[in-house]
C-alpha cells in the first residue's frame, strides 16, 4: 500500500509545477519549429527534446548529484552539505523554500573545491548526477563540444570565394557591430533599471549577434553559463529566421540601383592558397589574440584537413561521425539548461529582444559597410552581400542571393556573399576572443 502511495507521490502528475508544464510546452514548440518549419533542426531537435527531459519532475536529469540531494533535502545530508557550503544550519532545523534557495545558490557560486566536496557528500548519500548534467559537464563544461563543432564546420567550409575577393572580409568585420552594439543595449537596459545584466552577461547576450551557434555556446559557457539555454535557443532560432529578419533591413538601407549591382566574376583560386589560408589565420591568432586560439585553432585545423588533400579520411570523419555525435550531445546539454527555474525569468525575454536587435544591427552595419567601401573603390560591391557578414552560414548568403534575384533575375550573388559569410565566422570568433580576454578569467 505504502508502495503504491510511493509510486503516486513520486510520479510526475503529483509533482509537476506550472513552470515545468510551461517549459515542456515551450520545448514541444521548439520541436514543432524544428520539424515542421525547418528551424535549424540538427540542433533544435536535440535541444527541444533535452528541454523536455530537463523538466521531467523528480527525475532530476539536469541536476548534479549535489543539486539532487538538495532537491530531496534529507536532514542529515543537508547538515553535511551545510558545512562545505558554509551555510548556517543546525540538526533538526526546519527546511524552508528559502533554505533550499540558499543551498542552491551557495553550490552554484561555489569554487571547484566546494563543488567537488558537495558532490562527494551527495554521492556518499546515494545521489548521482543526472544524465543531462553529465552530458553538460563533459561536452560544454569542458568546452570540447563547441570546439569539435568548429572542427567539423572548418572541414565543411570553402574559403575559395573569400580568397578570390579578400576585401569582402571587411564586411564580415562590420557585421560584428551587432555583437558589441547589443552589449551596449544590455548596458542601457541595466542603467535604466528595466533589467539587470552584469557586463559578462551582456557580452554573452551580445554574441547572439555573431549568428554562430557554437561560438554563442562557447562564450556563454565561459561568461554566463546560467543564461546558456536562452542564449543558445535565441542564437539558433534567429539563425533560422534570417530569411525573415534580414530582407526588410536590406531593402530599407539600399536603393534599387545598388541592389542591381553586378559583381565581377570570381577568379579561380589555387589549391595552395586554400592550404595556406588556415595556417595564416592560425598564425595571426597566435600573434594577436591567443584567447581566440581554441575556437579558431580547431576551425583552421578542420579547414586544413579538408584542403590539404592527404588526410581525407580524417576530414570525412570530422564532417560526419564526429560532428553528428557531438551535435546530439551538445543539443541535449543545451536542453539541460531549459529547466523552468533557469529559463522562466524576465531576463530570458530581455535576451530574446536583445538577440533580435543584435541580428538587426549586424545586418545593417554589414550593408552600410559595403556602401562605404563602394565610395572608395571602383570595383563596386553589391551591398546586399554585406548582410551575409553576420555569418549564419550559409543561410545569410542565400538570403543575399534571393534578394538580389528579386531585383535582377540575372544577378547571382551567392558565391560573392559566401566571402563575407565565412569571414563573419572568423569575425565573431575574434570578437569572442576579445570578450573572453577582457571579462573571462
Amino acid at each position: 500500500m505504502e508502495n503504491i502511495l510511493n509510486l503516486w507521490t513520486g510520479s510526475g502528475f503529483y509533482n509537476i509545477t506550472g513552470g515545468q508544464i510551461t517549459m515542456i510546452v515551450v520545448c514541444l514548440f521548439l520541436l514543432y519549429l524544428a520539424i515542421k518549419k525547418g528551424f535549424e533542426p540538427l540542433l533544435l531537435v536535440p535541444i527541444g527534446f533535452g528541454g523536455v527531459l530537463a523538466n521531467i519532475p523528480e527525475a532530476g536529469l539536469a541536476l548534479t548529484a549535489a543539486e539532487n540531494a538538495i532537491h530531496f533535502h534529507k536532514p542529515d545530508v543537508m547538515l553535511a552539505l551545510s558545512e562545505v557550503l558554509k551555510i548556517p544550519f543546525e540538526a533538526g532545523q526546519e527546511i524552508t523554500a528559502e533554505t533550499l534557495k540558499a543551498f542552491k545558490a551557495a553550490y552554484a557560486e561555489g569554487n571547484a573545491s566546494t563543488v567537488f566536496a558537495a558532490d562527494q557528500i551527495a554521492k556518499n548519500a546515494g545521489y548521482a548526477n543526472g544524465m543531462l548534467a553529465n552530458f553538460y559537464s563533459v561536452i560544454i563544461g569542458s568546452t570540447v563540444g563547441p570546439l569539435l563543432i568548429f572542427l567539423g564546420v572548418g572541414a565543411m567550409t570553402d574559403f575559395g570565394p573569400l580568397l578570390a575577393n579578400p576585401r569582402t572580409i571587411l564586411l564580415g568585420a562590420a557585421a560584428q557591430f551587432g555583437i558589441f552594439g547589443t552589449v551596449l543595449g544590455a548596458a542601457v537596459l541595466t542603467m535604466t533599471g528595466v533589467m539587470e545584466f552584469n557586463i559578462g552577461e551582456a557580452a554573452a547576450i551580445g554574441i547572439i549577434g555573431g549568428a554562430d551557434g557554437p561560438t554563442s555556446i562557447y562564450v556563454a559557457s565561459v561568461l554566463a553559463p546560467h543564461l546558456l539555454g536562452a542564449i543558445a535557443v535565441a542564437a539558433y532560432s534567429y539563425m533560422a529566421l534570417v530569411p525573415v529578419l534580414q530582407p526588410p533591413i536590406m531593402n530599407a538601407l539600399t536603393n534599387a540601383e545598388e541592389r542591381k549591382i553586378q559583381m565581377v566574376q570570381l577568379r579561380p583560386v589555387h589549391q595552395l592558397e586554400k592550404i595556406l589560408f588556415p595556417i595564416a589565420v592560425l598564425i595571426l591568432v597566435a600573434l594577436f589574440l591567443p584567447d581566440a586560439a581554441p575556437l579558431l585553432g580547431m576551425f583552421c585545423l578542420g579547414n586544413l584537413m579538408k584542403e590539404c588533400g592527404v588526410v581525407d579520411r580524417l576530414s570525412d570523419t570530422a564532417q560526419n561521425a564526429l560532428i553528428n555525435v557531438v551535435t546530439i550531445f551538445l543539443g541535449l546539454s543545451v536542453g539541460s539548461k531549459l529547466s523552468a527555474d533557469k529559463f522562466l525569468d524576465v531576463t530570458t525575454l530581455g535576451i530574446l529582444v536583445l538577440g533580435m536587435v543584435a541580428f538587426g544591427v549586424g545586418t545593417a552595419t554589414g550593408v552600410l559597410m559595403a556602401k562605404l567601401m563602394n565610395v572608395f573603390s571602383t570595383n563596386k560591391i553589391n551591398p546586399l552581400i554585406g548582410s551575409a557578414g553576420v555569418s549564419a552560414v550559409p543561410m545569410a548568403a542565400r538570403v543575399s542571393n534571393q534578394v538580389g534575384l528579386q531585383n535582377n533575375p540575372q544577378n547571382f550573388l551567392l558565391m560573392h556573399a559566401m566571402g563575407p559569410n565565412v569571414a563573419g565566422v572568423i569575425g565573431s570568433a575574434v570578437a569572442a576572443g576579445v570578450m573572453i580576454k577582457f571579462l573571462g578569467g
Partner: protein
Amino acid sequence: MTQAFSLMAVGMGFVFVFLAILVVVTSTMSKLVNKYAPKPEPAKAAPAPVAAAPADAQLLAVLQEAVNQYRSDKKR
C-alpha cells in the same frame, strides 16, 4: 556603461584591425602563390560526363537503388 562602451570600442576596433591585417596577409599570400607556385592542374579532369543520354537517367536510378540496397545490407 563605461565598461560596455570601452568593450565596444576596443572589441570592434580589434575585430577590424585583425580582419584588415587578414585582408593584407591573404592578398599578399595569394599574389605570391599565383606568381611562384606551379599552375594548378585543370581541376580533376571533368568527372565522366554523367546523365548524357536519357538511358543514363534510368541507369542512375538503378545505381542509386543498388547503392541504397548495399548500404542497407551493410547496416543489418
